């Protein structure tokens, strides 16, 4: 399911597909930059001698050097985690148990899992806040364990708690964080104003955060993580605890960011959220990735579609016969809800067949549908338990009841 990692053998290989040219000083181009380069350097061979620097720890990251200057890079994974293990309480709690994942540049990976699955621990390791017991990880091609300082320059982190100073105003917070990113005082003020505008917080700029609603707090927290336009953004449960309106607002904000080409790793315990925001989903449970793929792929993995027909009680027997003929599989009849269902493999053709047969017999169903499995079904099929039933992990506590769709 995981896309094969693309490795470009020489700088000219890169030039052929368009990723070439001088990308220093920042060796990780965002997707946008790559597109720009495509227009200018497609097919044009690069001149001069290049040395390939072997990156022992991360063989998928190939860096070429020309006269001591990093000129080209063939990395397509913005985030790589391999075999991360992290234990707490002297090994008693195994928060991460050989977790591996990667995020392709410019895409969104949704890390989906129940409380205690290891989502927060994963983000904390990638954001350099925590050191794993073993395993390796890189962000933007930089080793998070060996070179955490460099990683911090290219990432933005927004946690599940609104980590801003509540006694200060929104404007105070953003100028402070801008200053800590070493923007000048004037630039800090400008950036604070821009971000407040972008996140519709201008009216609340001069109010202490204490007076903000949950959604406003989260937006401000997110704004604080975007001060230097990070290449890679980590959002740890960005909508946990928000009301439905706040959640939808937050989704819109996040979708806007993604459109601008930011690479995003997002954790969530809401299946719907991963479906909405993520290009790819990694389902994790007990500190391991147990499934990986697009929402569609995951749904397919669990099983195909089901034909579901709701009919009048008197017609149920005949309907069951028709469904049985169309499906060829095991037919499930639920007397209470007057629903007949069965797995089908022929997609919409099964639906048409069923409709025709029903029509021939003069039966008018109350409802007829081809249902694809929801991510809920995916989770139950993969883990054997519902996403919300699990003991909380340290740092992922509090009374957050997950919502079912």
């Amino acid at each position, binding site marked *: 399911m995981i896309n094969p990692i693309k490795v470009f053998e020489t700088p000219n290989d890169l030039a052929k597909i368009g990723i070439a040219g001088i990308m220093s000083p920042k060796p990780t181009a965002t997707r946008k930059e790559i597109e720009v380069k495509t227009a200018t350097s497609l097919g044009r061979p690069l001149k001069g001698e290049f040395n390939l620097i072997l990156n022992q720890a991360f063989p998928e990251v190939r860096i070429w050097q020309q006269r001591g200057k990093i000129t080209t890079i063939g990395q397509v994974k913005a985030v790589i985690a391999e075999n991360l293990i992290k234990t707490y309480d002297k090994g008693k709690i195994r928060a991460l148990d050989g977790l591996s994942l990667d995020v392709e540049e410019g895409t969104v990976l949704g890390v989906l899992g129940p409380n205690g699955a290891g989502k927060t621990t994963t983000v904390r390791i990638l954001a350099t806040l925590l050191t794993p017991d073993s395993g390796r990880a890189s962000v933007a091609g930089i080793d998070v364990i060996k070179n955490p300082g460099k990683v911090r320059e290219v990432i933005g982190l927004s946690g599940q708690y609104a980590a*801003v*100073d*509540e006694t200060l105003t929104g404007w*105070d917070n953003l100028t*402070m964080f801008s200053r*800590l*990113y070493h923007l000048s005082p004037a630039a800090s003020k400008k950036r604070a104003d821009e971000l407040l505008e972008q996140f519709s917080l201008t009216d609340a700029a001069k109010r202490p955060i204490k007076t903000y609603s949950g959604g406003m707090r989260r937006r401000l927290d997110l704004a604080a993580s975007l001060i230097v336009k990070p290449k890679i953004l980590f959002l740890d449960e960005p909508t946990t605890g928000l009301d439905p309106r706040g959640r939808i607002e937050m989704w819109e904000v996040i979708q806007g960011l993604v459109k601008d080409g930011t690479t995003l790793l997002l954790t969530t315990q809401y299946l719907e959220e991963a479906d909405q925001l993520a290009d790819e989903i990694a389902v994790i449970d007990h500190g391991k990735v147990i499934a990986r793929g697009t929402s569609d792929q995951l749904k397919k993995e669990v099983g195909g579609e089901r034909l579901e027909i709701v009919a009048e009680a008197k017609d149920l027997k005949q309907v069951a016969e028709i469904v049985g003929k169309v499906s060829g599989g095991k037919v499930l009849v639920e007397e209470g809800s007057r629903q007949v269902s069965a797995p089908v493999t022929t997609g919409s053709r099964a639906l048409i067949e069923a409709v025709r047969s029903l029509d021939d017999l003069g039966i008018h169903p109350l409802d007829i549908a081809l249902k694809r499995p929801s991510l809920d079904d995916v989770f139950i099929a993969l883990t054997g338990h519902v996403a919300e039933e699990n003991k909380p992990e340290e740092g992922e506590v509090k009374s957050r009841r997950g919502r079912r769709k």
Partner: protein
Amino acid sequence: MIKYAISDSLIITKRQLLQLIRVPEVLIFSTIQPVMFVLLFRYVFGGSISTGIPGVDYVQLLMPGIFVQTVAFTLAGTAVGLAEDMQKGLIDRFRSLPISRSAVVFGRTLGDGALNIVVLAVMGLAGYAVGWRPSSGIFSILLGFAFLLLFGFAMAWVGVLIGLSVRSARVANAAVFIAVFPLTFLSNAFAPTTGMPRALQYFAEWNPVSTMVAGCRELFGLQNIFGVTANSWPSQNPLEMSLIYMVIIMAIFIPLSVRKYINTASK
């Protein structure tokens, strides 16, 4: 790098001063409490505690004691503030920023140290109002206050370690109280040590709070009286001893605190 380390720290300090502007109650209450102590000790105990020095009333002895007690409690604010920042995830955010690894704790201790300037000024005025009259020169008096500020700064570093080690702000508060309260009372701060059991007298005379108090009394133009350990080195050289204590505290707690901050995992 060093330039950033300093400017990052100052930004954190500025944040704290900004908090005082946004929530002035904090400053008001942190000055009311010591002023209340001044009044209580002056008028409740002052009448029954004899200074043992003819012509010197209790308030002269009391003020240096209360000054030292107040700055010793600086670490409470530091510990509680950091524990709160940690609980709320703010420390996580700071740690994810490309800033100097010691900026957050340095900025915090500087801020807490600076807050003492206001507190000491208010207390000094309150003391003056109830009869405190330092009899030394202006230079000595200012040097006394400088000593107090430095002691507050040193103690703030102990607070950093406590604040980053406990699970919540409430625990931090309790831990600090248990640690500092006996230290300030098993000293010469409020009553002469001569009335204590012999064993306690030794402890009291070597207590850094006592050497600070004795040092300040000296700088404010007052003669110290001691019990059994009158001839001991800390009693004879309270200023030097205090300075040594402060250096020891900082030499131990600054590296420990910075390391704790770097390795900390929020709860």
